[in-house]
Structures are given as structure tokens and as C-alpha cells.
């Protein structure tokens, strides 16, 4: 097809990217409106057009890069993920600092919808290597957020070396996660000295951001592993409809939300007085776990088995024994002499009431094609933010030992990073407080 022929297919006056951006956002809006109407049934039925328009605008807009906290944590979860973990391959602290400064500058531009470099993808002349790779030319900011974290091995390597004079600055909670029952952790896709979480409403925007940071890191960092995700599996704002994960269930109904600042302060943000607060206050710890879903056994189990495993209804996402998604979870309620929500169900064991804590989940579904046996290599790339991994993810996960869902999942990767607070000024950079 020629370029002119391709142009024929587009509405007049819209660039190719603008056209696709609107089409995608429109689709998302329809889904959001449908979900809201079906689930909640509140008096919003007359407003779907307005909601869709708002969603469309938000999907392409820029998310502010600066603030007290890094964007990409309580930011309403975008639709797409590209998460990457790096090994630092230099022992030169100055090189590492220079890269973090270059990354911050590029991130500042890219989250605003600009090219990664000051010159741009096509304005540097014929003989220069472009300072942006170009695949996001003409694309809007698409809600891009870039969130950086520092792994335990940045402070002290596995064999005990303090490469960057940071060993004394490692907060005690930043330590590799313990082993959990049923784990099948692959070290090749676990751990890392640094991480960057890129989230956006357009997968190309997220991939573009990571690709350019990787390019800027040549000689300083090496990609250890990376993961693409789609279809956010949590809502982090009460303005978002609860999405479904690949089990077909709504996920994240009782998540910590941006609208609950008190709960965030208690469970998500590192606060003055916490270990490492001198550089980490206002930051958080991120835990990532690649959770393979055993799709085929799940798909051949009955609806009753599925709902008993999760503890919610599949259609509405209501706690078993209730009607609607946001009805209170009542673990005392009984049906025919049994607890409505089984004590081995995921909701029972993971719920703050029984786990004694709360975490902010921000995971994404993944499908890495199929495995060698023709089974879908799919699952949940679990991401959770918390004030302390020990009283956050670890505590929840230890409570899931008897989770009926364990029959259908397997954790295959594990990583933990300390995410510094937000970028506050024009000359601020990722890790400034840590490296100063």
C-alpha cells in the first residue's frame, strides 16, 4: 500500500498517530462505560458520553513528572507496561551518577511527550546518530510514567562488594525476599541492581521510553530481564473501573487507592523515622513477581470451583454471599452452614482483615506466546508498592500458604527495589539524595 493510499483511509485532518490514538481511547472509553453501567448501576447511566470523552483525553495526556512522590505508583494505572531490571556493569560511581542524570533528563522529556534527547530523532543531521529512536514521533504522551528503583545488589553485590560506597545507605528492609512455598524462581528473570517501570496507555510509548533509557545506559548498565504487560489488573484510583485478570475475575477491588491518602501514608510511603528515610522518605518499595497462571486447568474448572477459589463472583466481582462488587467483604457470613467466603479462598487470605496489612497492587497481565507444549505462557506480572516489604508483600504472601489459588499459579520471578521519592526541581535527578 502506498503512503497516499494509506492516507486515504484516515479521516481528513488527522495524522496517522492521532487517528489511532483516538480510536484506541474510544474503545477504552466504551469498555469503561459498559463496566461502570453493568456493575454499579448508579445514576451514571446518562453520562457515558461525557465519561468516554474524559477517558479519551486522559489516555493521551501527560502525567506530571515531578512531585513529592514518583509518578507511576498512585497514578491511575495505565493500560500498558514495560518493566525492565538492569545490572550495573561499571564500578565507576561517577559513570553511574552521570547515567542517572541523563536518564532523568530523558525521562523528563519523554513523559512530556517529547523526544528523549534535546536534538530529537530527525534533527541532528545526516551523519549523527539520532538521540531519539523515533518510534514515538507524533505520538502523544499517552500518560507515560517512568518509575525508578534501586535493588539490594546496588548497595552490596551478591559476593559482598560495596562497589559504589552505598553499603551503609542500604535500608534494612531492602533485602531479597524470602522463599515462599511453591516458588519456582528463575534467577535469570529475578533481581537486579536498578529497575524502571514504564507505564503508558500506548504500548509503543512505553517500549520507546525503555528502549531509549537502555540506549543511554550503554556501558553502564546491562538489561538483566524485562517484561511487557497489558491490561492493568488493578485499579489504583476509585475513578477507574476494576479490570479483569486472565482468570476472568475482577482484580484489585479492595486495592489501596490514590483517594485514600491516610492509608497510603500508613502502607505505601516511606516516612521520616523509617529506615533509610534520609534518602527514601516519600519513596516506596516495589516488589515484582512473575506469576504464571496454569490457564488450561483453570479453564476446565467449573464456575463454582473458580468462584470458591477466588472468593468473589465472576460476573460482578461481589464478595461471595453479597450482590455487588463494592459490598463489604463479610467473612462471618454463612450460607447453608458454611462460610460464604471459604477460608482457603484468595480473598479470605489476602484481605487486609486476615493478612493484617495492605499493599498497593499495580500488576499487569502478560502473554509471552506459548510454551513448548502449546500451552499459553500467560499470567500476572504482579507489582506491589509498600512501605516495608516485610510487613507488606511478604506478610501477605506468607498468609497465602493455604490459598486454593496456588493450584492454578506458580511464581517464577522475584525482585524488590527501593523507589526514591519524586523529582522536585529542574536540577533534581533520580537518586540525588542517595548519591549525595
Amino acid at each position: 500500500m502506498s503512503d497516499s493510499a494509506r492516507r486515504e483511509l484516515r479521516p481528513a485532518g488527522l495524522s496517522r498517530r492521532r487517528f489511532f490514538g483516538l480510536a484506541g481511547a474510544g474503545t477504552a472509553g466504551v469498555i469503561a462505560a459498559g463496566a461502570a453501567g453493568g456493575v454499579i448501576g448508579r445514576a451514571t447511566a446518562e453520562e457515558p458520553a461525557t465519561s468516554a470523552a474524559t477517558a479519551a483525553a486522559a489516555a493521551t495526556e501527560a502525567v506530571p513528572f515531578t512531585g513529592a512522590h514518583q509518578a507511576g505508583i498512585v497514578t491511575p494505572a495505565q493500560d500498558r507496561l514495560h518493566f525492565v531490571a538492569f545490572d550495573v556493569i561499571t564500578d565507576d560511581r561517577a559513570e553511574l551518577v552521570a547515567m542517572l542524570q541523563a536518564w532523568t533528563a530523558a525521562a523528563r522529556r519523554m513523559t512530556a511527550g517529547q523526544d528523549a534527547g534535546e536534538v530529537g530523532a530527525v534533527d541532528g543531521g545526516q551523519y549523527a546518530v539520532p538521540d531519539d529512536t523515533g518510534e514515538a514521533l507524533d505520538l502523544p504522551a499517552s500518560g507515560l510514567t517512568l518509575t525508578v528503583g534501586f535493588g539490594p545488589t546496588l548497595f552490596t553485590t551478591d559476593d559482598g562488594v560495596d562497589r559504589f560506597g552505598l553499603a551503609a545507605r542500604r535500608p534494612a528492609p531492602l533485602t531479597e525476599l524470602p522463599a515462599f512455598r511453591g516458588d519456582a524462581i528463575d534467577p535469570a528473570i529475578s533481581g537486579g541492581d536498578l529497575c524502571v517501570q514504564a507505564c503508558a496507555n500506548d504500548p509503543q510509548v512505553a517500549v520507546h521510553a525503555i528502549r531509549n533509557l537502555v540506549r543511554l545506559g550503554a556501558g553502564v548498565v546491562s538489561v538483566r530481564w524485562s517484561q511487557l504487560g497489558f491490561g492493568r489488573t488493578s485499579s489504583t484510583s476509585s475513578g477507574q473501573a476494576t479490570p479483569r485478570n486472565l482468570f476472568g475475575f475482577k482484580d484489585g477491588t479492595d486495592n489501596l487507592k490514590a483517594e485514600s491518602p491516610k492509608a497510603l501514608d500508613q502502607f505505601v510511603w516511606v516516612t521520616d523515622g523509617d529506615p533509610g528515610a534520609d534518602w527514601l522518605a516519600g519513596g516506596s518499595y516495589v516488589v515484582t513477581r512473575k506469576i504464571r497462571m496454569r490457564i488450561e486447568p483453570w479453564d476446565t474448572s467449573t464456575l463454582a470451583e473458580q468462584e470458591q477459589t477466588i472468593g468473589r463472583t465472576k460476573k460482578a466481582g461481589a464478595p461471595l454471599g453479597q450482590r455487588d462488587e463494592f459490598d463489604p467483604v463479610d467473612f462471618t457470613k454463612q450460607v447453608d452452614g458454611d462460610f460464604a467466603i471459604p477460608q482457603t479462598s484468595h480473598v479470605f487470605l489476602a484481605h487486609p482483615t486476615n493478612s493484617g496489612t495492605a499493599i498497593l497492587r499495580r500488576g499487569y497481565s502478560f502473554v509471552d506466546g506459548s510454551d513448548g507444549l502449546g500451552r499459553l505462557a500467560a499470567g500476572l506480572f504482579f507489582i506491589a508498592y509498600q512501605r516495608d516489604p516485610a510487613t507488606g508483600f511478604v506478610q501477605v504472601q506468607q498468609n497465602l500458604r493455604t490459598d486454593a489459588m496456588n493450584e492454578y499459579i506458580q511464581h517464577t520471578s522475584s525482585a524488590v527495589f527501593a523507589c526514591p521519592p519524586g523529582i522536585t526541581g529542574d536540577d533534581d535527578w533520580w537518586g540525588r539524595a542517595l548519591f549525595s
Partner: protein
Amino acid sequence: MSKPARERLSLVGLTGLTALTLAACGGGSSSGDAGTAGDDIAVAAADDSCEVASSELPAGVHQFTVTNSGSKVTEFYVYADGDRVMGEVENIAPGVARELRVELPAGNYEATCKPGMIGDGIRSALTVSGEAPTLSEDETLAQAGTDYQRYVQSQTGALVEQTTAFVNAVKAGDIEGAKALFPVARTYWERIEPVAESFGDLDPIIDGREGDQAEGEDFTGFHRIEQALWQTGDVSDMGPYADQLLTNVQEIATRSNDVQLNALQLANGAKGLLDEIATGKITGEEDRYSHTDLWDFQGNLDGSQNAVQSLRPYLEKADPALVGEIDDRFAAAQAELATYRQGDGFVFYDQLTEDQLRGLSDTITALTASVSQVAEVVAQK
């Protein structure tokens, strides 16, 4: 060979290949036309020593006579800063003496023997005093092309010699001898791959891999013989392939005499050689039967370093910070590769772990990021 020949033409750009003009020039030149040498400096090269009769010289043309009393094939280089080659003789067999004539302006140099043809070599300081010539920017860049051309000629000379030895071993049915010579002959090929590949008609029949051929075309060249040596162990029907390989290599050597690259082509060629490592050697695709990919890796790396260093006098003025970064990263890549040396050669590709390959890949990625900036610097001229 890693990409279709048609694509690779652009690496160097045939249109830019100009016939050699023997312009008078102030820098080094090693072949017989370097002028008359007033001296003859003996170099005693052994497996573990390299004794140069003089360490202080006046500026001008000098002749070195290198005698190899060791048991390994050796090479002799006169390096300027950053291992820029002022002159070299390749492929000095045990018991053989060879001459190098080279013009050396005032400056500090290192006389270097490389027994076994790998590694940093055995080095000694060479101080040349007198007037240092001042070259204009244009002259400096033109000199780069001349220097590199001399390098190419020394490599093609050695390539022909070692390919002859390889071909003779194949035709004599000396499997072990041929296996030992295969990666050695290829070293010279890989050092000048961008130039060799610029001859789109010859490259595929010298260096094509099985499956690269169009329908009806025969699988010929180095890799056809490699397949026979390592896969079937039967070279009884390789005679015609061996003869054809030598003929084609000789043709490359002849044609290369007329190739002079401009600064931009040198910059792109240096980067192209690193791309060859990233796409063909780190993947083990190049020598899929012999697994001697690290020899080729070394050849590409050396060739890239040489092309960049030929531009060094210009780059040192135009972008000294970049020169420093490139020096560091070439050193890092050389050091990383050196950890896989074994005897006079390297560990075989299929013995490398995933982690080790990643380490090699990381150093090449970093180096490529730096070398890729050279084109813009020389283009600003």
C-alpha cells in the same frame, strides 16, 4: 559475512572508493615506497621477548629487520598513541626474517612483537626526536585514508599467505593442520571485512554461509571447507573449492590495493566491524561448524580499532573526550575478550556460557555507542 551483499555495499559505499593516488604525505608508510632508510634496526623476536636494537631514533624513514627465533608465528608493529599503527609486518613465521620500512615523525612510539599474533604483545618504548610535521585538518583526514590503506595492504598480504597455507593443508588431506590454519587465515579476513565485503561479487563466494546461496548457486568458500573439516572430516572432494578460495582471495588482495576510504567511510567501517561482532560472532553464527568465532571476534575488534585509530590525529583535536572514551572502551573489550584466550587461540564458542556471552556483548554494546559517534565528528569537517 552476515548480511546480504547488496546491503553491505552501503557500509563502505562503492561510489566513495576512489582509486589510490600516491600523494606525498607526512605520516607513516611501511611498504617499499616509504623512501630510503638510512639504517637497519635489528629486532630479535622470540616467544617471550622482543629486543629492538635502538630505542632512540631521529625523525625520518627507518628500516626494521625482524627475525623470529621463536616457535610461534609473530607480528611486529610500531604503534603511536592509542595503538595507532604507524607500520607493521604480519605473519612472520618461525625462523624467518622480514623487513619493515616506516616513516616516523617525532614522537613517542612502541615497538611491539606479537608472538602467536594475539594479545597486547611485548612492547618497548621508541623515542623519535626532531621536527614534528604540522598537518592541516584536511591533510590529517587524508592521511587517515592513506594509513588505513597501508593497513589493508598488510592484511591482504598476510591473508593470501595464510590462505595459501590453509588451502595446501586441505589439498594434502591434512585435517588437523587445516583446522589449525582455518581461524588464523580468517583473522586477516575479519580485520578488513568492510573492505572485503565491499566487493559484492567476491564476498558471498568467499565467506557465504550455507543457505545464503540463491537457487542454483553452489555453497563455496571458507565455510564450505569448514563444514567438511569439522562436520564430515572428509576433505577428499574439497580440492576445487580450495583452489577457488585461493583465487578469489588473491583477487580481493589485488583489488584492495586500489581502495582508499575517506574519513566517513572509515568511521562507518569501524562501526560496521563492531556490528559484525554483535550480529555474527556473539551469536556463534559465523563459524557454526568449527566454533572458532572468538578468533573472528578478535579480528573484527582489531580491524575496528585500527580504522578508528587511523582517524585519531584528527579526533584528538576535534573531540578529545570521545577519544578518551573510545580508548577506554576498546581496552575494556580487548580485556574482556582476552579472558577467553586459550593457548595461542581462544575458547571455542560452544564452551561459552550465557553469562560470559553477555559480558562480551555488554562491552561491544558500550564500545559501539562510542564508536558510532565518530561519523558525526569527522563529517563536521
